[in-house]
C-alpha cells in the first residue's frame, strides 16, 4: 500500500513537470518554425563563417603536409648520399688491398675488369633505385594534387548546394510559404547536401589504395634493382676468381 503511494507520487509529480514543460517545448518548436524566415540570414552567415574557417584551416594543413614531405625528402636524400659516400670510400679501401695482391699483368687486368664490373653494377643499382624514388615521389605529388582537386570540387558542390538551399528558403519566405514548410524543406536540402558530400568524401578516401599501389610498385622496382645487382656481383666475383687463379702469383726469387 505504501509502495502504491510512492508510485502515485512519482507519477503525479512527473505529470505536473510534463505539464509545465510541454507547452514550453511546443512553444519553442512553434517559435523555431515561425522564426525560420527571420533567422535565415543568421544561419546562412554562420555556415559561411564555418566555411571560411574550414578554408583557412585546410590551407594551413595542406601547407604543413607539403612542408613535412619536402623536409623528409631532403633528409632522405642527404642520408642516402651520406651512406653511399661512406660505402664508396670503404670499397676503395677494399680494392686498394686487393691491388696490393695483384702482381702479374693478368692479375692486374682481372682486378681491373672486376672493379669495372662492380662499379657498373653499383651505378645500375643506384640509378634504378633513384628512378624508383623519383617515380614514387611524382606519384605522391600526383595523388596530392588529385586529392586536392577532388576535395575542392566536393566542397564547392557542397557550398553551392547550401547556397541554393538558403536562397530557396529565402525566396519561399518572401512568397509567404508556411514557415513550417520552409523549415522542413531547408532541413531536407541541407541533409541532402551533406549526404552528397559524405558520399564524395568516401570516394576521395579511396586514395589510400592508390598509395598502396605506389608503395608496392616502388618496392618491386627496388627489389629488382637489388636482385640484378646481386646477380651481377656474383658473376663478377666468379669471373674474377677464375681469371686470378689462372694467373698464379710468381714465387718469390731466392
Amino acid at each position, binding site marked *: 500500500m505504501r509502495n502504491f503511494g510512492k508510485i502515485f507520487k512519482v507519477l503525479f509529480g512527473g505529470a505536473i513537470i510534463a505539464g509545465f514543460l510541454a507547452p514550453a517545448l511546443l512553444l519553442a518548436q512553434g517559435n523555431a518554425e515561425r522564426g525560420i524566415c527571420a533567422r535565415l540570414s543568421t544561419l546562412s552567415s554562420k555556415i559561411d563563417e564555418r566555411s571560411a574557417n574550414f578554408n583557412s584551416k*585546410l590551407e594551413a*594543413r595542406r601547407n604543413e603536409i607539403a612542408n613535412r614531405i619536402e623536409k623528409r625528402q631532403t633528409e632522405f636524400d642527404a642520408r*642516402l648520399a651520406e*651512406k653511399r659516400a661512406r660505402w664508396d670510400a*670503404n670499397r676503395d679501401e677494399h680494392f686498394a688491398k686487393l691491388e696490393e695482391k695483384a702482381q702479374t699483368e693478368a692479375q692486374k687486368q682481372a682486378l681491373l675488369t672486376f672493379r669495372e664490373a662492380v662499379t657498373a653494377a653499383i651505378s645500375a643499382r643506384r640509378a634504378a633505385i633513384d628512378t624508383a624514388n623519383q617515380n614514387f615521389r611524382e606519384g605522391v605529388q600526383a595523388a596530392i594534387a588529385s586529392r586536392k582537386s577532388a576535395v575542392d570540387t566536393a566542397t564547392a558542390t557542397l557550398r553551392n548546394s547550401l547556397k541554393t538551399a538558403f536562397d530557396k528558403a529565402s525566396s519561399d519566405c518572401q512568397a509567404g510559404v508556411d514557415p513550417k514548410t520552409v523549415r522542413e524543406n531547408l532541413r531536407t536540402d541541407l541533409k541532402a547536401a551533406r549526404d552528397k558530400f559524405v558520399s564524395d568524401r568516401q570516394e576521395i578516401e579511396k586514395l589510400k589504395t592508390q598509395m598502396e599501389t605506389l608503395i608496392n610498385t616502388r618496392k618491386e622496382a627496388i627489389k629488382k634493382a637489388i636482385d640484378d645487382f646481386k646477380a651481377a656481383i656474383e658473376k663478377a666475383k666468379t669471373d674474377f676468381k677464375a681469371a686470378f687463379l689462372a694467373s698464379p702469383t710468381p714465387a718469390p726469387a731466392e
Partner: protein
Amino acid sequence: MNTRLIVVIIIGVIVIAGLGFFVSRKAKLPVSVVPPKEEIVPPPATGNVDDLVGALLKEITDEESVLKDEEGNTTLVTQDSQEVGNFVNSINESEL
C-alpha cells in the same frame, strides 16, 4: 616518548612522500619512442675478394634501411581528413 614517536612519523611521511614524488616523476619522463636505428659499419678491408663482396651486400642492407623511410610520406598525404571531417560535421540541419 611521544615526541620521538612524532619525529619518527614525520620522517616516515617525508620518506614516503619523497618516494612517491620520485616514482611519479620517473613515470612522467619522456621515453624515446623511436628506437635508434642500428648503424651498419662498413667492414675493414682485408684484401680478400669475398670480404669485398660481403661489404657490397652489407651496403645494400644499409641502404634499404633508409629507403623504407620514404614510404612514410604516403601517410602524410591524407592528413587533411580531420579538417574535412570537421567541416562536414559542422553542417547540421538539426540546428534549424
